[in-house]
């Protein structure tokens, strides 16, 4: 077994990136479907944190902001023949608010490029879970402790041994299209230290991959003289 740890690039990115993309409809907000299914209006790839969040509008039953996040890892150094035995995505949270009983869900992402995040990437997050969700309630948000999401078999199969592993993060309400019970001007958020973090110690998000070199099978050959 070998355990290899990977981090997204910080700005200026060369092979990977992490950050957020979102849709912001202003204080009044819009219908859930309009917010969730619309185009992105903002993005950030060089900030010290990124987040997945949901913010309700001032007018019932509207919603104001929805943000999704992307974290890419250059994992091509893993030997091609190695088996991926286990993988965890680990992150440090700096802020959280659990007003809508949300969970953080991990999916794949397909950003326009691997080295920046643009508003258009808001519609480039997948719909298949790569790990079990982690509830906002269970996230330790102290700017120091790592929270762990363990990738499932689907997630492990999507670890790239030839390029970039591209993960995305959405609230479960966003992913499963489950509009929460509306409350005016309220936010549900998990904010995560990015590759550009400036906290005490190294608190970057990381992908920790356990991989194994498969045994060599010897097949004896019959010599005929």
């Amino acid at each position, binding site marked *: 077994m070998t355990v290899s740890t990977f981090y997204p690039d910080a700005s200026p990115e060369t092979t990977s990136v992490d950050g957020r993309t979102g849709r912001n409809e202003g204080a009044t907000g819009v219908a859930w479907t309009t917010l969730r299914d619309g185009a992105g209006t903002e993005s950030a790839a*060089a*900030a010290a944190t990124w987040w997945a969040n949901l913010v309700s509008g001032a007018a019932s039953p509207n919603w104001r902001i929805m943000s999704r996040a992307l974290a890419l890892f250059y994992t091509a150094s893993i030997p091609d023949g190695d088996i991926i035995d286990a993988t965890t995505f680990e992150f440090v949270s700096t802020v959280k608010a659990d007003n809508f009983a949300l969970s953080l869900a991990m999916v794949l992402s397909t950003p326009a490029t691997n080295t920046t995040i643009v508003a258009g990437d808001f519609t480039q997050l997948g719909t298949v879970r790569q790990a079990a969700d982690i509830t906002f309630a269970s996230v330790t948000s102290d700017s120091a402790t790592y929270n762990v999401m363990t990738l499932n078999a689907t997630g492990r199969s999507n670890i790239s041994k030839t390029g970039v592993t591209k993960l995305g993060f959405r609230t479960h309400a966003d992913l499963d299209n489950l509009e929460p019970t509306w409350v005016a001007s309220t936010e549900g958020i998990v904010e995560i230290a990015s590759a550009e973090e400036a906290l005490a110690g190294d608190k970057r998000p990381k992908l920790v991959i356990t991989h194994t070199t498969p045994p060599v099978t010897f097949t004896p050959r019959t010599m005929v003289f």
Partner: protein
Amino acid sequence: MADFKIVDVFTQDGQLIVKAEHYHATGSLWFVENYTWQGREGLKQKRATNALGQLLLSDNSVAPSRIVRPGLPDVLEQYLPTGAQWKYRPGPHMDEASILSVIASIHQQRLAAGWPQGQVDVLRRFKPTQEDEGGIVGLTLGFQSLKGRIV
């Protein structure tokens, strides 16, 4: 009794390799594991902050802030103005805790899940890039002091 001991710190194919012996609570050898980090980590630096945790620009001024999440109160985020440069701390972003925390975490995970006593795994050839080759020397030199560390 110690959970693990760093027995070697070396490079292979542009990767930092930290070899650790993990022990049972009795002190007997449990398994040996190789932990790796890409050499490019030697080129990554952490942005510098002042005593208040505010990000600094290369001229030592505090980076300006802007609203990123309106609310009560508004949430502010520091940003890099056009034409400016961040100030960085010397040395790689990784620190000793970056390495020791992964090893400790694996120890606890395998303690909880059960783990057969393993043989030393043979490291297959990794696939480095020019970035990995460029950063590996500085990265490895910085962590040689971990050799022999017992946790």
